[in-house]
Each structure stands twice: as structure tokens, then as C-alpha cells.
């Protein structure tokens, strides 16, 4: 199933859809891709791509000149501040709410409750996905039916945050408390407290069964796995794994400033990954025409999926409509942990049938996902537990994947870097390691015998998406990733520590991701030439700190044949930049980047036309380089600046040189990662030290290798956190126990292992200048690699994250007694 494909149904439960026998023709998925001549450049032919020009926004960021949302508050002298009253109980109903005291306080401008006129009463999802969202419409901006500790009940706008907080404190709430359920297995049973009645949800998702708190059930199969299990020549292994509730922990909290402009339109300056989706969702929710809403993204202090959601924007908008004042809402750090979003914690089972000689005949994953109180990204994330990791082993003939997504009375989850792939990768890569050990096979060889190679028609990624969802593999650097990763970690030659109680081991894990959502993406760009030969590049694509603006500029500079400094990027403002789905699913460089390339190519055509006129030479004799057009015949040249002036101020004819490009695709080529973890374990205590993490990544051509390395290292650090920390924990009353970074167990600089990133270049013909995605795939691999390393070092297997000294010691004790 593709990540964001609408699969709402009419209320019927899902049926497994057996794959129909279709003969895919070469025409539908040709190996030879018809790419533009200039798309495949040898390193020496490149002027900007795969170079390391400065990141566009770095100088303003290192000097403090850059502005994030909260930094723009000073522009609004009339600004008031929002605070939110949130539920103190995990399940129940607000039977009485008294706002009298709060409203009477000096400095309070508005106190809103679910019934207030400017508060929408419709159902929606906060998931920032395409339309109609493949997430259920099950939540409200403010609610009197609360389903977790943190559900928003009332909102206040006041002169300052202290007053707003005091007003929130002054609101009296009486609850009727219901029984609640925190454990997804219990929630899924017949007699558990039920979070939703059938009438409570619109846009229901495939496989829902609210009588059992099931938001969705999905299933996909390729071949008949049961047939393989019945065979006598196979070994059947089954393993179970558990992942943490990880926080995005973006250092800039979710922040929005909402105001009404002089044209009576609603403007939101907001820390979002999805400006266009947010505009549409606000329009639907508030019944305001799309044309009357403007969403602007300033610099964003990290997203990681946490801002691929309309988490806070409706509240300041409702307050600005009520007060006629600009309103800023900035989540507290505590709210970030208990009331924003997190990674879906899951239990994942893996099962396989493998012959004695190591041929995998069947492979299967089942996931039980705890989506929390609401269903944002619930089905699509769970779908990717199978749809991202399993295709890596495209040679396996029988595949089955199934997932149940279940509600509990804990904070709702959402999109997070990796989007289901980390949960699936832990199970799959840990499982294969166990199989290899049990059958005395080389853990790398069993993978290599089954993993993708160029030319494969991958049917697994599309096995839940119906006909035509298959994809051809046209770039694959897995062999090289494995080879270089092994060398860097010292796979073949590790020294054991001298002390007898210390044991060293190396673990390996591989991973594949996608590049954008196949068939459900759109990016667009426009480029305008100035007289001096510079360009304004307008892109809807969203830079949330990744360097996307820089990648856009490099792609445009390469295409146009000019210096990066001649290009001024303007991005992510729904009034002034073309449409874009936003920064998610590892799509930005590939989708928005291709749109930029098309726009630049379009502009270049016009530049050549003008140069042809000025040089009196045919267009096909002309080339661009370093901001000039030159003739390959005469050697004569004209600068972009001369063309810029002539095109705008020429005597005979005039034209503003503009280029535009819009791009969507059915393709989603996988990037690959080979992860290695080197660990030393103390068998007396179970304490372990990660000596080094090495990760080699095939992201096609890295548009900017410096930025790509940064993505890889950051992703590995986040993966390390998934392996060794508790994440967001919830106590037995349904209260989140993590209130601060200190509680969260964030791994600081001196607590983090050295991370070595290796870029393995391949050429992806469908990508801009050969690029595919990079930022998600290295998130997936550290937990299984570390679990495998510990297994190698001391022989015990930790399947339930986080890996702790205590768990290792307990297992060691079990094996010795």
C-alpha cells in the first residue's frame, strides 16, 4: 500500500487482497529510463551538483540573523499569547466547565471552549497528508470528550504567557471519568473500554473495528507463505520485537503566529513541514475559502515528522478570529512530550521458512501498532512496517504482511523519520541474524543472496497497492555499501579486549526506504531572471533544516550553468510559491528537486533563444557555463547579465525570462543503508559501550555530500536513541512521565558514540542528476545492528527496546543457570 493512498472504505472490514496474476510489460516499468541528456553527468562534468557549496541559510543561522516563528513575534505590537487547558484524565467527558474567573482576569482577551463560535466543531485529522487524508477524521480542535491526558479542552489568549497560563489555571472543569485502557493488546480484546463509537469518526480507514478499538487492519501477500511452512526441507523461525515511543524532540517547539491581514485574509506563520496541506486542512475545518488563507514557513527548528501535522495551528487561528488580535501559540517542552506527537510504539513478529542451505522460501511480518488516542498516520505508518523493509529482499518468493492499528488512552502518535520502517527493520534484520546463527550461515551472505539488484521488478513494495504498484530497480549500491562498511568497521579483524569479562562484537543490519510516496506526490517551481543575470527561484518545497533550499539552488545552478550565488531561493509561502506536498516521505530533493530542474531547464531554453538572437547563431550551437552563453562554433559569448538587460529593455521585443516546472511520478526508488555497530559488553554487569557506528548509504548522487553526511549522522544518532533509551513512558494512570529533556534521557555529545558516514554513489536515472533520498534510511538500522552486535559479543538476544545493561545481565544470568 502506498504511504498516503486514500483507502477509506464504506465501513466494511478489510479482506486480504490476493495479488492478481498480471504480466508486467517492460513498457510499464522499463529498466532503461528516458532521462534528459544532462541528467547523468560524470563527476568532472558537474559544476554544482555533488560539490560542497555553503548551505544557503548557514550564515544567517550562525550569526543569529535568521528568524524562526517565535522570533517574528516582535513584528506584531498587538500580539497576544495562547495557552491551552488540557485534559487531566485519560478517558471521559467534560460535564461542566466554568470559565467565569478566567474571563474576568485583566489581560485576558478570550477563553474558548468547544462551543465557542470561532471554534470549529467538525472532525478532522491532524495528519498533514494529501487529500482526502488516509487518516481518520476523529479529533476536534477543542473537545469535551477527552481520550488522553493532554486532550485540548479550552484555549486562552492573553497579553502575556503568564497571564494566559494563570487564566488556564482559573478554569474549573468537572469530568465524568470512564474506564481507560493503556495496553494495545488489552485494548484489542472484546471487553476493553471503547474509545470511539462508530458515529464518532468520519473518513474511516480500511479494516476499522471500533468495537475492539481497531482503527485499521491491513494485509498484503505475495505468493502463499503457508505452503512454504508446510514443506519438510525448511526451518521455521519466529521472533518478536518491541519498539519505544520515541519523541521527535525537535528543539524548536511547535509554534504558530496567526493574524488577519489588511485584506481580511488569515495568515499563519508557522513551524510546519506541510504549508499547502495545512492551508487546505484549515480551510476545510474553519470553512474559510482556501484563497483566504496564507501559510508561511520561516526557518524551522527541526521537524522529523512531528511537524508533518497540523498540531497547533487551529488554536491560534480560532483565537485570532475571536480576538481580532495576532495570536502566538508556542508549545511548552512539557506539551511537546505529552500533547504533540511521537513515533508509534509497536510489537512486531517476524516469521520465516528457510532451507538448510540458507534459501529464504517465505518471510512474514505482523505488527500491532499503538496509535494512541487518535489515528493520525496510523494506517500509513503501519503499512510501511512492511512496505519499506520487506522489498529489500526482493528475491524471496513468498511474502506476507499484516498489521492491526489499535487505539489506547495515551497521547496520539504520528509521522516520524523512518515512518514505520524502523519498527519493521528491527524485526526483520534481527530475525535474519537469528536465522543465520541458528543455521550456521554467514549473516551477510544470507542477506546478499536475497537482496535487490539492478533490473529487479520489486513487487513487494506494491503488494498492497494493486496492479502497477510494482517498481523497477534502476540503481543499487548495496554490494558497495556492505563492502565499504565492513572495511570501515573492521569486520574481518577485530581484537578482543584483554580482560576476560569484556567481549567485543560487531553487528550488521541493512535497510531500504523509498523516495517520496509512489504516485502521490507533487512539487512545483518557478524561476524568474533579473536584469543582472541573477534568478529568483520560487519553490513550494519545505526546508526544515535539512538544506533543501541549498539542494534546490545547486540543481538550478547546474541546469542553468551559473554560480549558486546567482540564485535566490524563495520557498514555502502558499501565496508566493508554487504548490508542494511538503517535506515528508524522503521526497523533497527528488520531487521538488525535479520540479526545480524542469523550471530551470525551461528558463534556460528562453536564455538560449535570446542568446541566439544576440549572437546571431543557432540555438543548437549554444551552451551555458559560469553565467554565460557561448557558441561551440564561433566561441563568441554573451553573459547572463547582458541577456537579462536585453530581454527586459530591448528595443524591438521584450520578455521577462521565466521558467516553470511541475513534477509528479509513479516512481519511488529505494535508497539503501548498510549499518555496522561495534560494541564491547561487560559480562559481569551487562554494561556495554558502543565503540563506533558505521553506516554506508547509497542515496544515488548526493547533491551536496556535506549535507548528506549530516543527514546520515543525525539519523543514526536518532536510531541510537531508539536502541538505548526508554522514550516517552506513560504511568499506570495514563500520565506521560517525561516532562523535560532530562527525563527523556536524550543522549548528549559525550554520551553519543562516534558515527562514521560513508556515501556510496550510484546513479538513479529517475532522480534529478541521479539523486534519490537520504534522510530516513539511516534512522532504521541502529537498533537491529546493536542487538545483533550484543548477540555476537555475549550470546544473548535483546528483542525489546531499549537495550539496557539490566536486560543483558538478566539474560546472561538465565543462560548460565
Amino acid at each position, binding site marked *: 500500500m502506498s504511504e498516503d493512498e486514500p483507502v477509506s472504505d464504506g465501513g466494511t472490514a478489510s479482506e486480504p487482497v490476493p495479488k492478481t496474476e498480471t504480466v508486467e510489460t517492460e513498457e510499464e516499468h522499463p529498466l532503461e529510463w528516458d532521462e534528459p541528456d544532462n541528467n547523468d553527468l560524470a563527476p568532472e562534468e558537474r559544476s554544482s551538483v555533488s560539490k560542497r557549496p555553503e548551505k544557503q541559510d548557514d550564515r544567517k543561522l550562525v550569526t543569529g540573523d535568521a528568524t524562526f516563528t517565535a522570533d517574528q513575534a516582535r513584528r506584531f505590537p498587538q500580539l497576544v499569547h495562547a495557552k491551552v487547558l488540557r485534559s487531566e484524565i485519560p478517558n471521559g467527558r467534560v460535564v461542566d466547565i466554568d470559565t467565569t474567573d478566567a474571563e474576568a482576569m485583566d489581560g485576558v482577551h478570550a477563553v474558548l471552549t468547544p462551543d465557542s463560535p470561532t471554534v470549529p466543531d467538525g472532525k478532522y485529522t491532524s495528519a498533514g497528508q494529501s487529500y482526502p487524508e488516509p487518516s481518520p477524521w476523529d479529533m476536534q480542535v477543542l473537545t469535551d470528550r477527552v481520550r488522553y491526558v493532554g486532550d485540548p479542552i479550552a484555549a486562552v489568549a492573553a497579553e502575556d504567557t503568564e497571564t494566559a497560563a494563570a487564566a488556564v*489555571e*482559573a478554569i474549573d472543569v468537572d469530568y465524568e471519568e470512564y474506564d481507560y485502557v493503556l495496553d494495545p493488546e488489552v485494548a484489542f480484546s472484546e471487553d476493553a473500554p471503547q474509545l470511539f463509537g462508530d458515529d464518532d469518526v468520519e473518513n474511516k480507514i480500511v479494516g476499522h473495528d471500533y468495537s475492539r478499538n481497531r482503527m485499521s487492519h491491513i494485509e498484503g501477500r505475495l505468493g502463499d507463505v503457508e505452503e512454504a511452512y508446510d514443506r519438510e526441507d525448511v526451518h521455521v523461525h519466529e521472533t518478536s520485537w518491541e519498539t519505544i515511543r520515541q519523541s521527535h524532540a525537535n528543539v524548536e517547539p511547535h509554534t504558530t503566529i496567526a493574524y488577519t491581514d489588511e485584506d481580511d485574509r488569515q495568515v499563519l506563520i508557522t513551524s510546519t513541514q506541510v504549508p499547502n496541506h495545512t492551508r487546505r486542512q484549515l480551510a476545510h475545518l474553519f470553512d474559510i475559502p482556501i484563497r483566504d488563507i496564507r501559510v508561511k514557513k520561516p*526557518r524551522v*527548528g527541526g521537524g522529523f515528522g512531528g511537524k508533518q501535522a497540523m498540531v497547533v495551528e487551529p488554536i491560534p487561528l480560532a483565537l485570532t478570529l475571536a480576538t481580532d488580535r495576532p495570536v502566538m501559540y508556542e508549545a511548552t*517542552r512539557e506539551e511537546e512530550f505529552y500533547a504533540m506527537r511521537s513515533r508509534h510504539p509497536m510489537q512486531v513478529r517476524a516469521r520465516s521458512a528457510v532451507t538448510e542451505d540458507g534459501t529464504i522460501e517465505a518471510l512474514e511480518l505482523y505488527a500491532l501498532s499503538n496509535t494512541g488516542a487518535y489515528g493520525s498516520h496510523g494506517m500509513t505508518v503501519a503499512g510501511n512496517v512492511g512496505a519499506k523493509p520487506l522489498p529489500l529482499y526482493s528475491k524471496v518468493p513468498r511474502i506476507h504482511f499484516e498489521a492491526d492499528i489499535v487505539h489506547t488512552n495515551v497521547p496520539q502518535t504520528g509521522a516520524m523519520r523512518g515512518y514505520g520502517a524502523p519498527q519493521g527493520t528491527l524485526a526483520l534484520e534481527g530475525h535474519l541474524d537469528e536465522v543465520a546463527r541458528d543455521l550456521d550461515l554467514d549473516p551477510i551472505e544470507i542477506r546478499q543472496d536475497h537482496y535487490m539488484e539492478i533490473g529487479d521488478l520489486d513487487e513487494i513494495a506494491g503488494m498492497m497497492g494493486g496492479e502497477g504498484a510494482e517498481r523497477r530497480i534502476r540503481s543499487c549500491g548495496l554490494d558497495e555499501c556492505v563492502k565499504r562498511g565492513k572495511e570501515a568497521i573492521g569486520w574481518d579483524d577485530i581484537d578482543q579486549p584483554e580482560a576476560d569479562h569484556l567481549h567485543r562484537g560487531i553487528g550488521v543490519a541493512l535497510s531500504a526506504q523509498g523516495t517520496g510516496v509512489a504516485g502521490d506526490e507533487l512539487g512545483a517551481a518557478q524561476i524568474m531572471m533579473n536584469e543582472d543575470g541573477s534568478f529568483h527561484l520560487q519553490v513550494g518545497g519545505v526546508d526544515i*533544516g535539512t538544506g533543501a533550499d541549498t539542494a534546490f539552488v545547486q540543481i538550478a545552478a547546474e541546469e542553468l550553468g551559473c554560480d549558486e550565488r546567482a540564485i535566490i531561493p524563495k520557498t514555502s509561502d502558499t501565496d508566493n510559491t508554487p504548490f508542494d506536498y511538503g517535506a515528508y516521505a524522503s521526497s523533497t530533493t527528488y520531487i521538488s528537486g525535479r520540479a526545480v530542474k524542469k523550471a530551470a531547464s525551461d528558463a534556460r531554453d528562453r536564455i538560449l533563444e535570446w542568446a541566439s538572437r544576440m549572437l546571431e547563431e543557432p540555438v543548437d550551437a549554444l551552451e551555458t557555463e559560469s553565467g554565460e552563453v557561448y557558441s561551440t562554433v564561433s566561441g563568441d559569448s554573451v553573459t547572463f547579465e547582458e541577456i537579462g538587460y536585453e530581454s527586459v529593455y530591448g528595443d524591438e521585443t521584450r520578455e521577462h525570462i521565466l521558467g516553470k516546472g511541475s513534477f509528479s511520478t509513479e516512481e519511488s526508488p529505494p535508497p539503501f543503508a548498510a549499518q555496522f555497530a561495534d560494541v564491547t559488553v561487560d559480562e559481569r554487569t551487562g554494561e556495554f559501550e558502543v565503540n563506533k557506528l558505521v553506516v554506508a548509504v547509497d542515496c544515488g548522487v548526493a547533491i*551536496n555530500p556535506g549535507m548528506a553526511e*549530516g543527514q546520515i549522522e543525525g539519523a543514526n544518532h536518532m536510531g541510537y536513541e531508539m536502541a538505548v533509551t526508554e522514550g516517552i513512558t506513560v504511568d499506570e494512570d495514563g500520565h506521560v512521565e517525561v516532562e523535560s529533556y532530562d527525563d527523556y534521557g536524550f543522549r548528549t555529545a559525550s554520551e553519543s558514540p562516534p558515527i562514521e558516514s560513508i556515501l556510496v554513489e550510484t546513479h538513479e536515472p529517475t532522480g534529478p542528476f541521479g539523486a534519490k533520498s537520504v534522510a530516513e534510511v539511516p534512522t532504521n538500522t541502529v537498533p537491529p545492528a546493536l542487538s545483533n552486535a550484543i548477540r555476537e559479543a555475549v550470546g544473548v538476544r535483546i528483542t525489546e527496546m531499549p537495550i539496557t545493561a539490566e536486560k543483558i545481565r538478566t539474560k546472561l544470568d538465565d543462560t548460565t543457570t
Partner: protein
Amino acid sequence: MSVPGPGTAVRPTFRTTMTTKLTINGTQTTVESADTDLATALRSAGYTGVKCGCDGGECGASTVLVDGAPEMACGMATREAAGANIQTIEGLGSQDDLHPIQEAFVDHFAVQCGFCIPGMILEAKALLAENPDPTETEVRKALDDHICRCTGYTKPVAAILDAADRVANRQVATDGGTR
């Protein structure tokens, strides 16, 4: 102090204005300071390179130098800083004339979202003033008060180690007269 509104025992909502004189980046400035922490006062005065990423004292994003020592401004009462020399990121280099530490962060791609970076750079400045040739372990220890979600610390650590050389070279080249 004004009278609290009815029903609010918690906090007064309007206060008489109090001001404090601070020396910020070498310039004498008067900031509003009633009950506020230094981060709020500095941000209100336009020094928005001082960031706030937590509910106080944990993320390091508000780090400034107070008489050369790194302090999280969000955890310091404005009044406490009266008379001290405060340096914010705005007082280091400018975009066309970066301080060598800022330059090293740019050259090493140590900046992603950049929210935590002003704090890290000021921390590095204090570290290098005290320890001009730190080891990697010392650099990592110095960054322990700074939450960076983007980089995994690899590139910021490399940038600071390189910045140590740049600062040392700059001092030789300009008779010790650099910033």
C-alpha cells in the same frame, strides 16, 4: 504592582515597568526586566539569536556569555546580569565577516536547522578561551549542555576542533587582535 484580577491568586497580570542597565555586546542598553529572565529580556530587546527550546535550563539554546562564562540566559534573572558584560551571538561575526568559530561551523556543514547553533558557538568560544587546544573528549563534554537534534554532534565536534586551529592561527596573524 497592580492588583491581581478577580479570582486570580496565581500571578499579577500587569506590572510596573522595571528596567535594568546591561552591557550587551559592548553597548550599554536598558532592558525591561521586571520579573523576567535574561533570555526573555534579551529577546525582547531584539537579540533573538538567543533561543528558547525548553521550559528552562535544559536545552542550552539560550546560552550567552556573561563576563566570558557560558550561562543559559533562561535560567538567570535579568537583574543578576546588571553590570556584567553580556555577549550574544549577534556580537560575534557578521554574515560577511564571520568569527572563525562561525566560519568553521559553516565549512563543516555543522549547521542543519540551526536552532541550537548560537548556543553551541558561544559555548565553543568560552571553551577555546580557556582551553585553546581541546581534545575531542573535551569538546564533547563542553557540548553536553546543548541539545542538538539534527546532527548527532559529529560535525559540530569536528567544526570546534578545526575552529581551535583557526582561532590560534588568526591570533598569530593579527597580533592577537582578533575579536
